[in-house]
């Protein structure tokens, strides 16, 4: 476990709860939550290599694209938490996914790279699409089709009638500092939100 955002997520999750991880990758997070929070749950993952790794870890994984899979597999209010780490910006319809998350679970947890980070603004100001540690791809081969800033995300939540319960903004070393607290949308590189319906 080297990702500090996973530790923050774990702090937000109650012991013995049920968790759904959307785009669970190799299930490192779920594995961590099973060991540390005794959660039970499932991961959705469409990449077969990641599915193999998840099965190797003895984690419940469903090979499916969660854009369609959620509606097919999961009843409303079924989980305590649904989590999506660093995948919101890759979705065709982020707003739809956020609504799906609050449909299937009591609380949603999302992490994403902040497009409003000052280095991104600077690169764009100089006339080029931003490239950074948290956004490493060139514009033509990036999976990130729906990037947003913290303000954009919060506005969308407001429009969707979603209440933000908690928010953490971090730099690319997954730590916080005074600057981040004063001007999160300018100095924050990674955002974590916990939210619920209404």
């Amino acid at each position: 476990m080297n990702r500090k955002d996973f530790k923050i997520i774990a702090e937000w999750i109650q012991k013995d709860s049920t968790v759904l991880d959307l785009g669970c990758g190799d299930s490192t997070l779920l594995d961590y939550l099973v060991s540390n929070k005794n959660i039970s749950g499932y991961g959705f993952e469409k990449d077969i290599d990641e599915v193999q790794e998840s099965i190797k870890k003895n984690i419940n994984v469903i090979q499916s694209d969660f854009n369609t899979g959620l509606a097919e597999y999961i009843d409303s209010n079924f989980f305590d938490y649904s989590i999506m780490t660093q995948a919101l910006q890759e979705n065709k319809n982020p707003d739809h996914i956020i609504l799906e998350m609050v449909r299937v679970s009591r609380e949603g947890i999302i992490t994403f790279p902040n497009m409003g980070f000052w280095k991104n603004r600077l690169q764009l100001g100089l006339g080029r699409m931003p490239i950074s540690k948290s956004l490493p791809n060139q514009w033509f081969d990036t999976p990130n089709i729906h990037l947003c800033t913290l303000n954009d995300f919060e506005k969308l939540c407001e429009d969707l009638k979603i209440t933000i319960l908690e928010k953490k903004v971090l730099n690319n070393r997954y730590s916080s500092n005074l600057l981040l607290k004063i001007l999160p949308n300018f100095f924050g590189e990674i955002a974590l939100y916990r939210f619920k319906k209404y």
Partner: protein
Amino acid sequence: MVIIMQNKLKDNSVGIVLPKTVEIKYGLQLDCGKNLENFSLTYETYGELNSKKDNAILICHALSGDHHAAGYHSVADKKPGWWDSCIGPGKPFDTNKFFVVSLNNLGGCKGSTGPNTVDKKTGNEFGPDFPIITVNDWVNSQKLLADYLEIDTWACVAGGSLGGMQALQWAISYPSKIKNSIVVASAAKLSAQNIAFNEVARQAIITDPDFHDGRYNNFGVVPKRGLSIARMLGHITYLSDDSMRQKFGRDLREGKLHFGYDVDFQVESYLRYQAQAFVERFDANTYLLMTKALDYFDPAKEYNGDLSIAFENTQSRFLVVSFTSDWRFSSSKSHEIVKSLVKARKNVSYSEIESNNGHDAFLMPIPNYLGVLKNFIDNIL
């Protein structure tokens, strides 16, 4: 001969295996209402049962399968058992670690009591009088085999297609006697389309003039035409359009059209060959029985059609696998199983393997498929 043998052993094979047969002296109450008294089951085992007896895996066969799942019966055999790609030293069902049991199901034609064995009560062959056996009956008979082998709990029960149905039924019927259930290219119930294919196959057999109401052996004949057509039809549905195009395309067998009704295309030649080979090794009454077992399977039926309630008392972990090009047991049928298991909050993993091999993919050594099986099974012990 020695060279062939060495090659086969080198290939992670379980090598030469010998089937065994056990007489079960027990009255088995069948779903159809009849009682089957004293029957025999033919089976093979691979690997060793450990002292704790917790490493036993039961392999369940599909429509035309039997107990010979891995290895060879003799050095002269051209082909190994039907799931040899998955069973053997170092393979997903690793015989260095597990004791693998594979049986010929009741109603089969390869040694276990079935239509072509003699009814001791009458002294005649059962033939069409052999009772219809259900997946549930099979699981009950397999439980008796487990008792005989002194296996209290299966580390895993696994199968593809009709075999996957048995793996599901085990988890439902004997929740505490199975730790893991592997359900490959299967379904919790057949679709109307699937039942329709089975009905065409049955009609082909039953309307063959050599069928004689199932008593063909008394007349010294076999309903070859019907059984051939049934097999050809089945075979087409086990392949995909893509795989047939790749395998045969529109290739002609002799390079030209004959303007007649004999074989022109390679695909016709292939189907006839497969059908011929099948007729020589399979029994028509068993084929009818197996298709009925498929059609009748519906564990959700007694729970108002709610499969998740049928799964409520299960205790095993589940692995469900489907294949993208399988249209006879399409992925949507596996989704139905997975959805119900999730709803019942059971431990389940699901993988939909990319393959253009259609339903037959479950028998093939597809790397991602073997990987998923191996990663899951490695966690069993």
